[in-house]
């Protein structure tokens, strides 16, 4: 249905595709901000922004229908983000005197870049001519590569600001992002092995296979498979950490670091940081949806097979299948919204981690979990290919037991002679211990 685009000049094609990526993300950012504020306020049992975009209809105008005259119509504060934007635009743009000017100026742009570069790989539907704009052979690696660039915005902002709090935020962020990237890559590697391709579109296609290879009417979304589920959990945690969102928002922990790396930023430069964060959230949700949640399919149902299985309602199912294909972009958008909602939910629910807890979670829990998962998936694939499914079950169960025993032993050894985690302070840098603990936050407050 989208083949018409192939008839255009290549430059026009490219332009259309790029706009298809950039515009939705840009336009969605205000919506996301509004949704976050409303949802948070609802979860926290308060009102939230509801004033902007309240229309008070004139009592006298004849243009207004009678039943509206003198009434107020509430739009749940929908225009609030635009008001915010206007405010940020008009604010005074302060550049502190001691900053490293060049770096200070490019940092927000660098922060915004990865989200848009990633947006190009999101598959918005089964329309190969139109989307994704770059169906590269190396899709997942591209995601990892570009998302790893996200750290630069934070680090540069922190460095250039000439402010210890900013610097500290940058430091924490670089450590955090490097740590969680590993587990993220490992969790994706399992999916890559299951799919046999690095392309994201191939991953979506692989998820349209029968569930567990056994149920022909259902789709095999990776989140429904045991290994895929573990990968999905690891990926979910890592993607929250990679976007610096609560409960991993240590780089901008306001009770410790004021506002972290963007303390010294104001006006539009701050807004760009802000936009970058939300765009990254959106894009990561999209990647999660594509890789684990079946991409642009609304429901994990294989409509054609269901139609043949239930001949009585074949027509209905066929129609639903067509709808599923035609409106794929909307379903994908819906899944992204779901991801964003999960982000907000996490923010409303979980308290911020301490620095040592963050590192401990990343290195001691997520990475071993992801690596074990990877090993088990590899075993599973090799055994099914070489010896058949029954041997694979035996091998995987054995490997699972062995890995958990190993994990237990390692945990016991690691914990031996170690004081309770809760009373340990963190020292990020050398020098005077007492002073450093005061700076970094030290023992849990």
């Amino acid at each position, binding site marked *: 249905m989208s083949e018409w685009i192939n008839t255009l000049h290549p430059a026009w094609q490219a332009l259309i595709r790029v706009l298809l990526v950039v515009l939705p993300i840009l336009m969605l950012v205000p919506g996301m901000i509004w949704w976050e504020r409303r949802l948070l306020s609802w979860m926290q049992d308060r009102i939230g922004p509801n004033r902007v975009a309240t229309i008070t209809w004139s009592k006298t105008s004849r243009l207004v229908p009678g039943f509206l005259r003198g009434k107020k119509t509430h739009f749940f504060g929908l225009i609030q983000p635009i008001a915010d934007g206007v405010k940020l635009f008009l604010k005074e743009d302060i550049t502190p005197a001691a900053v*490293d000017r060049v*770096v200070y100026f490019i940092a927000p742009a660098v922060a915004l870049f990865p989200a848009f570069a990633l947006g190009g790989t999101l598959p918005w539907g089964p329309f190969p001519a139109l989307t994704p704009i770059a169906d*590269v*052979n*190396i899709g997942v*690696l*591209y995601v*990892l*590569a*570009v998302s*790893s*660039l996200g*750290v*630069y915005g934070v*680090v*540069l902002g*922190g*460095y250039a600001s000439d402010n*210890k709090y900013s*610097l*500290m935020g*940058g*430091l924490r962020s*670089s*450590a955090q*992002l*490097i740590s969680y*990237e590993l587990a993220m890559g490992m969790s994706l590697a399992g999916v890559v092995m299951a799919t046999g391709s*690095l392309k994201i579109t191939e991953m979506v296609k692989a998820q349209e296979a029968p569930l567990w290879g056994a149920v022909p009417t259902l789709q095999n979304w990776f989140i429904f498979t045991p290994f895929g589920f573990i990968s999905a959990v690891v990926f979910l945690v890592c993607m929250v950490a990679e976007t610096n969102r609560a409960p991993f928002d240590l780089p901008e922990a306001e009770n410790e670091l004021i506002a972290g790396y963007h303390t010294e930023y104001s006006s539009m430069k701050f807004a760009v940081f802000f936009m970058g964060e939300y765009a990254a959230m959106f894009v990561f949700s999209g990647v999660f949806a594509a890789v684990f949640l079946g991409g642009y399919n609304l429901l994990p149902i294989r409509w054609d097979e269901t139609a043949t299985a239930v001949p009585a309602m074949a027509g209905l199912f066929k129609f639903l299948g067509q709808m599923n294909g035609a409106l794929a972009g909307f379903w994908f958008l819906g899944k992204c919204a779901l991801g964003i909602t999960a982000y907000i939910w996490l923010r409303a629910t979980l308290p911020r981690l301490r620095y040592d807890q963050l590192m401990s979670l990343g290195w001691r829990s997520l990475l071993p979990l992801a690596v074990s998962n990877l090993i088990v998936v590899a075993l599973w694939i090799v055994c099914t290919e070489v010896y058949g499914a029954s041997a694979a079950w035996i091998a995987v169960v054995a490997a699972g037991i062995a890995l958990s025993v190993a994990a237990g032993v390692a945990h016991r050894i690691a914990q031996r002679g170690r004081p309770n985690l809760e009373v340990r302070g963190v*020292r990020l*840098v*050398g*020098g005077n211990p007492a002073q450093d603990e005061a700076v970094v936050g030290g023992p849990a407050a």
Partner: protein
Amino acid sequence: MEGVAQSPNLLVFAAFAGVAALAAIGVVAFPSALRSALCLVINFFVLAFLYFSLGAELLGITQIVVYTGAIMVLFLFVIMLLKLQAPALLHERQDFKIPLGLAFGAALFALIGAQVLGPLQGVFQMRADPGYGAPEPVGRALFSLYLWPFELASVLLLIGIVGSILLAKRKL
């Protein structure tokens, strides 16, 4: 320069190569360590595109993941740690070694350029198969013919892990 007119590719290459060269000069010339690091990031990033232009797509993306995504972040991390404690260290003075180094570099460049690269001027044909850099063939080669070096690299990384812990852990 009739080649330029014939081939827009050469222009694209020249643009990339120019950026890479400027960034490399920046690495050497900026007195501030952070500026040097940023120039190096740009250089690595552009090199990744040059790898793409050579058809080595997997290596290009690995370049971004490994160099810009991990190695340079580690460099920045250390630079920031130093800035936190002794900012003055990151700005260095200049001294007599500069003309010496430049002369040596110019000599090296001229010598190799004339003697080794000169005779290669006529080579335009890319003889390797265009798909040689796709993930699949690279993976196959890595896990078959190059299994032994691959395992050695794993030992190397193990040494890196144990070694950096031995050097940097606060208490052993």
